[in-house]
């Protein structure tokens, strides 16, 4: 009995060791090897190109580090992995940056403001021609996502509220087939490329899209604040490679765009159409102006109100101030002692001054 007990304890200790390695929080310190995650979206395809073309390696080598760019098929899963500490950085929207890592206590910095959705997210109705026709409908969307936020903003604009309709949580992978073939589904909120598909269904009308709320759905490269602070080289390498590719895209380099189109599962024309409804900041100057503008804190205030109303800041949050945010120039929103999401224009400014 004693011997077997010892064996069991030994096994338990071994198990604990394995668990410790996988579950322990990532400790911030100077290091050489980094991992960032991305998922497919029109404005994030450059990250895939950075990995495939070797440009990421070029910039990482320049700063004497290594950066592995990992594509994750499931967007939310990639953010969860980042929040759990498996990645040093990850692409995500402003709302998800607030509600997943920041609300989860992982101090995160929006290193690169890549673009904002300018029509890439929209509401499509089968019966009805205006937002007011949403009343009483069953709406298929990915609940608690930017689609949900867009719906709330659209309803606001006509004096309706969420209780005037019912939302059905529907996987973004199934939204197209459901809307185009099922009579049950009469209204959807989704993003591109699905949006283009559902808007093309016979008789369907796009009644609202993100171009009516420009600059509110923002696509970011978010990195762990502690890691960035200890390793400014990571910030420089990521920003550097980003704007090199932005240059190529702005010039309309067909080879580069073709590569991204293929990776996004579409063709050059299709990808150009997606980019048309994406307000890309091809020049770092534009991104710096956007990030330092007075509009950004106002947008984030709307986003945090929505998030708080839907319980996304976590139950520990008693008010929408629970999770603090910092903006360039020392401006903050919410609890200044619990700043967990920082918008930082410093690295983008370096890029615009050619200091990278």
């Amino acid at each position, binding site marked *: *009995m004693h011997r077997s007990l010892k064996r*069991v304890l030994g096994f*338990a200790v071994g*198990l*604990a060791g394995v*668990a*410790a390695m996988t*579950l*322990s*929080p990532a400790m911030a310190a100077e290091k050489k090897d980094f991992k960032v995650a991305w998922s497919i979206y029109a404005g994030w395809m450059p990250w895939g190109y950075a990995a495939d073309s070797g440009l990421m390696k070029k910039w990482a080598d320049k700063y004497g580090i290594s950066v592995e760019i990992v594509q994750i098929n499931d967007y*939310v899963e990639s953010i*969860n992995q980042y*929040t*759990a500490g498996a990645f040093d950085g990850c692409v995500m929207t402003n709302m998800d940056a607030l*509600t*997943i890592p920041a*609300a*989860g*206590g*992982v101090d995160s910095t929006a290193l690169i403001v890549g673009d904002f959705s300018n029509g890439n997210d929209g509401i499509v109705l089968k019966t009805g021609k205006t937002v007011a026709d949403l009343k009483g409908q069953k709406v*298929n969307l990915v*609940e*608690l*996502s930017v689609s949900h936020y867009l719906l709330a903003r659209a309803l606001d604009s006509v004096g309706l509220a*969420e*209780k005037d309709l*019912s*939302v*059905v*949580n*529907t*996987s973004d992978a*199934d939204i197209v*087939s*459901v809307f185009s*073939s*099922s*009579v*049950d*589904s009469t209204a959807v909120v989704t993003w591109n490329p699905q949006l283009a598909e559902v808007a093309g269904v016979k008789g369907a009308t796009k009644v609202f899209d993100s171009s009516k709320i420009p600059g509110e759905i923002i696509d970011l490269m978010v990195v762990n604040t502690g890691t960035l602070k200890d390793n400014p080289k990571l910030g420089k390498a990521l920003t550097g490679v980003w704007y090199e590719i932005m240059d190529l895209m702005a010039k309309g380099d067909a080879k580069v765009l073709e590569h991204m189109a293929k990776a996004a599962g579409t063709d050059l024309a299709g990808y150009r159409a997606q980019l048309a409804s994406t307000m890309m900041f091809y020049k770092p100057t534009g991104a710096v102006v956007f990030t330092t503008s007075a509009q950004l804190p106002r947008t984030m205030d709307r986003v945090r109100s929505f998030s708080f109303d*839907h*319980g*996304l800041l*976590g*139950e*520990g949050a008693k008010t929408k101030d629970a999770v603090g945010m910092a903006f360039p120039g020392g401006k903050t929103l919410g609890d200044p002692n619990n700043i*967990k999401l920082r918008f930082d224009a410093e690295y983008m400014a370096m890029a615009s001054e050619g200091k990278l």
Partner: protein
Amino acid sequence: MGRRIINRHPGRGSALFWGALPFLVLVVLYVTFSALRLAENPNDKLLPAFASIADAIGRMALEPDKRSGDVLLWADTAASLSRLGLGLAGATLLGLTGGIAIGLVPYARAGLAPVVAVLSMIPPMAVLPILFIVFGLDELSKVVLIVIGVAPFLIRDLALKVAEIPSELVIKAQTLGASTWQIVTRVVLPQVVPKLADAVRLSLGPAWLFLISAEAIAAQDGLGYRIFLVRRYLAMDVILPYVAWITVLAFLMDWALRRFNRSVFPWLARGAS
């Protein structure tokens, strides 16, 4: 040389200890790593402390939701159990009729056995997108998924059990003048219904799997819906109790079916022991 390990038996108390040990180890591991992560980051959501899990349970099981006014845990449980119940009832009915027909009637076997055998090989999750299109996104497609997932197994299992009935019994019933219907009700049913209940018990696991998968993809309520919804903001304090609750429900259903078998068909247990 001591006694071989295969011949050493734990006593009653010792068995209890060995049974509880893996659970204890899991709890201790969880508490340790939860404390480690929380020390590093008090807002960590991955391994919440038991206190915040208890908080979440109180919130989900006792307080009405701000938006809908429902008490979420119970609303979700009711929605899921009604889908599961309908799905299992449909599958059981199909299993019973199909199984008896295939096992007892040669023409039914010739006509149905091959198609059932082929259908049972289709992975139900693979046809889920088709189900959504054919049956819509509402309750029906979720129930149908459970039926499709479970019924072929029940039919085939029951057909085998019917075929295993000693032919002497069936012949004896015929010499006593029983019609086919009487053979079904007096000879076949008493023998195979308890076995059907056992087969349903074994199908509970797959049935839950199909239910939660369907709820994850498109739903307005349900236990699987909630887990996949709050996953969006990594609310492990809600996910972990929901998983535990599903486990409890599945365990209770298994236990209830076993009790049902024992009390309604006492001859079965008597024969076995």
